[in-house]
Every structure is written in structure tokens, then in C-alpha cells.
């Protein structure tokens, strides 16, 4: 086929494109399939060729007002209608409204005999008639290769197909031709020889028992295109290709903070909690309380009137609700109010991409402010490392784009270096809480700490994490010379400290008593001494009085005896003065 590259060189404008309307495919091909040219879609059985082609046609008719012709070689109109109806496409209605013509080409090999030279003018006429009847801009031939099986003389067939593609180009319709994947070539009958403008390869691979579909643009003449293999999936509303490369880092951020539902944890995060729209990673070994923290977070958000979507990959909604009862969290009123929604699925149910698409869809329908994924790690078991990282990147970007706060729990195996095993994921996260077990003293105790929290002051302290029937509490862990002590060791250390204080107090009291006693003793001594002294001084006084009295008595006696001796008055006076002298010198 001749490449009309002159078209693109004549105008500075790029090759005209025909948007498919298929999510992601237009991004990869930067605008769609080449307009007015045939595109080959090839792939093995069951990889979604017909669906891709049908969606291209239906979306063309519905979204871009470009009627289309579907020439089906394998399925009847009824079958096709039923098949695409499951994706929400109303093929019948479109046919009725003359937006789409479905022409089922059926050739029964057993009826056919060759009797000479022939051409495919019948096919041309049918196609031309169908195109003209509704003014079709798009044509799908699904699957042309059936002709090789049902018509004899391959040489004629080949030249006729070559003519067909040239004719389609002349008609100016954008055509999609599906073909079965060949063993060594792209298609079984080498159709890529004729259709060389754009070739899309679909693939359905089973990796570790989980099938993932991939799409790759092998060739796109005259345009830049994504060359990678992109995972795609067939969901309830058609095909979505999930290009990672189309993601950009330009989402808006919010300065608003939201509480975690654990006041002490809020306090550790600068007193206000996490930023709205940030991504939070919660890692921990089994049984450290990841789900409980998540449920707390969910409850707190729902109580503020925010919508919370809880993806659970390990427990059923009822089980979570029941289990949370045991710590005093009542979630079912919130579920009833429509503020909390659970979505449970086994990780092995389908591939990573399907999970991602399902999550996107749930998020789109529920429009939550908070999304919890518990745990992200079990989801990651189903993909390879790079797939996982790609998926989480996409998920986080999607959530951040919608300013949705996301909490991911991540299970780490005991004995691993926690930081290392989560390195790939953690770089995508804004905040990282770590829950850890401390073993010792015949018990295990939980601790929590904030490993990182982008853009906010956060505590560097390890807190012991207590789960009781009243909920979660964080208490200070004992940190002393012997390291971090938790649980009974912390309690024992507390008791020890108390005992030490008590002993100190007792010692002080004892000393005080001793001093008191000494003081009392001294006082007793003092009073004894004083009483001695007083006794002695009293004695002294008594003696002095005695002496005085006896002197007086003596004088009196002497006077009396002088009187008795009847001495004259002169003698009396003399006697008195003698008595005075005698007193001075006894």
C-alpha cells in the first residue's frame, strides 16, 4: 500500500486523527486512529479484538456523530448485539436510529464450490451500499480472515483484499480490521502486508494464574505513539487502557487537616492530623492493629459527614463491622447512613488491572472524601513489582487528583527490615505510620510511631498503642537506660519507680521522726536541768531564810536575855551595835 505521507507534509498539521472514545487509547495514540485509513487490530483468541472494534464503532456513533458499518464475518447481528449489550452499548437502538449498520457475512464452506475466476465485488457492493445508506465514516471488518477459510483460491483472495483496502482508503472511511494472531507473523494470513498504516496488537497473558490483557501500538505511520505495552481491561462500560505515562504531577493540594480519630495520634502530627488529600501508609506486622487504626480513621471521617470508601481485600464487610464492635467502634449506623461503604474482593479474583478499574469505578460512583485500602499488600501479590508500582502510582494520582485522602495499610512480614521492604511504595506516600510489635517479658506489645509526615511537624516519639474494649489509646512508652519498655515491663518499671519514691518518702519521714525525737530528748534534758537548778536555787533560798531566821531569833533571844539581866538603857544600845558587828563577821 502506498503511504500517503504527502498529506502530512503538505500541511504543517499532524495527521488527522479519528478519536476512538476508548478510555486511554486516544492518549496513547495522541488523538485516535488515523482518519480515513485502515487500522489492523490483531491478537489471539479472546483478547478483545471484536469488542475494541465494536466500541470504536459505537462510541463513534454516540459520541462523535460518525455513523459506522460493522461487517461481521463471525457473529450474527443478534449475537453481537447481545455481546456488546453487556457493556452497556445499545447496538439495536443505534441500528434502528440508522447510526450503525450491521451486516453479517456468512459463507458456508460446504455450500460453496469454485467454478472459475471470481472477485469480491459482492462484498464491495454490500459494504458500499451500507456505507452510503447511512453516510458511514467508520467501518469495522471483523474478522476478514474468515474469508480465507471459506473461499477457495487464496491468490484471488489476496489480490481482492489488497483492492479492498485501497478502496476503503478511497472511500475515506476510518476502518478497523481485526485479524487473528499468527504464529510467526502478526496475523495468520499476513494481512499486515496490506494494512500498514496502523497496527494494534492485543494480547492476553496469564501470569501466575492471573490473566492480564495488554495493548501495544506496533506501528502508526506518520504519528508519534506510545510504544509500550499497556495493560487494558474490559469492564462494565467497555475497554479502558491504562497508560501510566499519561499521569502527571500537577494535582492541587489542600492545607486542610483532618483528624485521625485517635486524639493522641493527632497530637503526634502537630496536633491536627493529616492533610486532606494526602496519602497515608500504615505498615505493620500481622496483628499490630492496622485495620483498627483504619476503622478508627473511617469512623472519624464518617462522623464528620464525609463519605468513606473502604476497600477490604481480606475481610468481608460484616466481619470488619463485627470485629470493630469488640473495640467499641460501631460502624453499621454509618454504613446505613450511606457515609461508609465497604467493597470487599479477594485479591486473586482478578488481575491487578481489573482491581484498579473496579476501584476507579467505585470511586467514581461513590465519590468519597476518604478511601481506605486494607491491605494494599495482598493486592500486590497478584502482580509483578513494576506492575504494582505502576498501579499504586496510578491509584494515588487518581486519588490525589480528586483530593481524596487515602489510607493504605501494608502488611510486613515479621523479621524483615520494614523500611526496606516498603521502600518502593513509601516514596509515593506523604505520611507513614509504623505499627510494630515489641516482644519481651513473655508478651508482645504494640507501639506506634510516625516515620514520616510530609509538610508537618510530627513527634519523633514512640508511643505504646493500647487496644481495649473502649478503643485505641496511645500512652507514653517508658524510655530509660534499659531501652524502650512497654506493657508489663512498663508497668513494672512504673511500680519500681513508685517503690523508690515511696522508700525515699519513708526515709525522709524516719529522719524527721528521729530529729523530732532528738529535739524532744534535748528538751527533756533541758527541762531536767532546769528543774535541778530550780531545786537547788530553792534550796539555797531556803537555807538563806533559815540563816536569817536563826540570826533574828538569836538576836531576839539575846535582847530578851539582856532585858532579863535588866541592864540600863546604855547597855542596851551598846549591845545592839555589837550585834550588828557580829552579823558582819560571823
Amino acid at each position, binding site marked *: 500500500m502506498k503511504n500517503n505521507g504527502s498529506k502530512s507534509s503538505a500541511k504543517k498539521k499532524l495527521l488527522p486523527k479519528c478519536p476512538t472514545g476508548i478510555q486511554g487509547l486516544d492518549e496513547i495514540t495522541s488523538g485516535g486512529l488515523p482518519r480515513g485509513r485502515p487500522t489492523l487490530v490483531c491478537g489471539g483468541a479472546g483478547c478483545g479484538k471484536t469488542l475494541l472494534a465494536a466500541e470504536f464503532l459505537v462510541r463513534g456513533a454516540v459520541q462523535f456523530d460518525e455513523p459506522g458499518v460493522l461487517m461481521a464475518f463471525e457473529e450474527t447481528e443478534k449475537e453481537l448485539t447481545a455481546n456488546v449489550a453487556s457493556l452497556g452499548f445499545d447496538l439495536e437502538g443505534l441500528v434502528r436510529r440508522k447510526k450503525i449498520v450491521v*451486516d453479517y*457475512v*456468512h*459463507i458456508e464452506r460446504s*455450500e*460453496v*464450490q*469454485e*467454478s*472459475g*475466476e*471470481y*472477485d*469480491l*465485488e*459482492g*462484498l*464491495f*457492493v*454490500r459494504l*458500499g*451500499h*451500507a456505507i452510503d445508506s447511512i453516510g458511514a465514516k467508520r467501518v469495522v471488518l471483523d474478522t476478514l480472515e474468515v*474469508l480465507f477459510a471459506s*473461499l477457495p483460491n487464496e491468490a484471488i483472495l489476496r489480490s481482492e483484499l489488497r483492492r479492498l483496502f485501497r478502496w476503503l482508503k478511497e472511500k475515506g472511511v476510518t476502518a478497523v480490521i481485526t485479524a487473528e494472531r499468527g504464529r510467526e507473523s502478526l496475523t495468520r494470513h499476513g494481512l499486515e502486508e496490506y494494512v500498514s498504516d496502523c497496527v494494534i496488537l492485543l494480547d492476553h497473558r496469564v501470569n501466575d494464574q492471573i490473566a492480564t490483557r495488554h495493548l501495544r501500538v506496533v506501528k502508526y505511520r506518520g504519528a508519534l505513539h506510545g510504544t509500550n505495552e499497556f495493560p487494558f481491561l474490559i469492564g462494565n462500560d467497555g475497554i479502558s487502557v491504562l497508560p501510566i505515562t499519561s499521569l502527571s504531577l500537577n494535582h492541587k493540594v489542600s492545607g486542610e487537616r483532618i483528624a485521625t480519630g485517635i486524639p493522641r495520634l493527632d497530637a503526634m502530627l502537630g496536633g491536627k492530623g493529616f492533610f486532606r488529600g494526602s496519602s497515608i501508609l500504615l505498615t505493620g506486622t500481622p496483628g499490630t492493629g492496622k485495620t483498627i487504626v483504619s476503622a478508627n480513621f473511617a469512623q472519624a471521617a464518617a462522623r464528620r459527614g464525609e463519605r468513606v470508601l473502604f476497600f477490604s481485600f481480606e475481610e468481608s464487610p460484616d466481619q470488619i463491622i463485627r470485629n470493630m464492635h469488640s473495640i467499641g467502634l460501631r460502624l453499621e449506623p454509618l454504613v446505613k447512613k450511606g457515609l461508609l461503604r465497604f467493597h470487599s474482593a479477594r485479591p486473586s479474583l482478578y488481575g491487578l488491572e481489573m482491581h484498579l478499574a473496579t476501584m476507579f469505578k467505585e470511586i467514581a460512583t461513590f465519590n468519597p472524601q476518604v478511601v481506605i485500602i486494607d491491605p494494599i499488600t495482598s493486592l500486590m501479590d497478584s502482580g509483578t513489582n513494576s506492575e504494582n508500582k505502576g498501579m499504586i502510582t496510578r491509584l494515588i494520582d487518581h486519588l490525589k487528583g480528586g483530593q481524596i485522602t487515602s489510607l493504605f495499610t501494608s502488611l510486613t512480614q515479621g523479621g524483615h527490615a520494614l523500611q526496606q521492604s516498603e521502600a518502593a511504595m513509601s516514596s509515593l506516600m506523604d505520611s507513614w505510620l509504623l505499627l510494630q510489635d515489641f516482644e519481651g517479658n513473655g508478651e508482645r506489645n504494640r507501639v506506634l510511631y510516625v516515620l514520616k509526615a510530609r509538610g508537618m511537624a510530627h513527634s519523633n516519639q514512640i508511643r505504646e498503642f493500647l487496644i481495649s474494649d473502649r478503643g485505641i489509646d496511645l500512652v507514653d512508652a517508658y524510655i530509660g537506660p534499659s531501652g524502650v519498655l512497654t506493657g508489663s515491663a512498663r508497668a513494672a518499671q512504673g511500680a519500681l519507680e513508685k517503690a523508690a519514691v515511696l522508700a525515699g518518702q519513708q526515709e525522709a519521714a524516719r529522719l524527721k521522726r528521729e530529729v523530732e525525737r532528738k529535739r524532744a530528748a534535748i528538751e527533756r534534758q533541758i527541762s531536767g536541768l532546769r528543774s535541778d537548778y530550780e531545786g537547788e536555787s530553792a534550796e539555797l533560798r531556803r537555807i538563806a531564810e533559815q540563816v536569817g531566821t536563826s540570826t533574828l531569833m538569836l538576836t531576839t533571844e539575846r535582847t530578851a536575855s539582856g532585858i532579863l539581866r535588866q541592864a540600863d538603857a546604855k547597855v542596851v544600845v551598846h549591845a545592839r551595835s555589837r550585834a550588828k558587828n557580829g552579823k558582819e563577821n560571823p
Partner: protein
Amino acid sequence: MKSVKPKPTRRAAPPLEKSRSTRPAKKYVLRLFVAGATNRSRHAILRVQELCNAELKDICDLEVFDIYQQPALARANQIVATPTLIVEFPPPLRRFIGNLANITGLFVELDLAKKVKITV
């Protein structure tokens, strides 16, 4: 359905002597679809008319359609290749595609003994 355009054969077929009593009372129903007045079309038409005249005289109902003129017929009759000769009766339905240059298969299918050499 459009009836055959009566095209006179170039050469009158030789009269057939054989008795037709063994033939089924019902007529053969043949429909030929061609695309335009190409050499291939003309060839096919001539061959099938020759056959009708030679082998199935009076018991053959032949219709020739040009799908350029009636494109809707192509879809209704599941025509892909042209020319296509559809033998509708007697059943089963058979399709002969091509310009009928090789007519042996047709004879076998129609259970005809090749009495007369058909040449065009």
C-alpha cells in the same frame, strides 16, 4: 425478483431427443448474481444460459441479477464473491462462485449426465 433478461444464445442449442419423464416435475431454480457488465459477468451469464438451454430446457427457472443495480440483494442473498450462481432448488442450497469456466462440479451437483458438450 426480476426475471431474466432474455438474451438469445449465440448458437441455437441442438434439440434434445431424450425423454424427460424421469426428471422431477418441479423446476430447477437457479439464480445468478453478477456485478456489472464485466467480461467475467458476461461469461458466467452465457455459461449458465447455455446450460439451461442444453440440459434443463423448460425445467429451469433462471434469474440473473446485477448487484450494482440492486445492491440490497447482495446482502439479502449473502453474496460475497461474484459471479455467484445459487442453486435454490432442488435442495440443498449450493453456491458456485466464479465465472463458471469449470462446470463439471455443477453437473455433479445437479445430478446431470453430461449429454451435450457445452461450449461458449
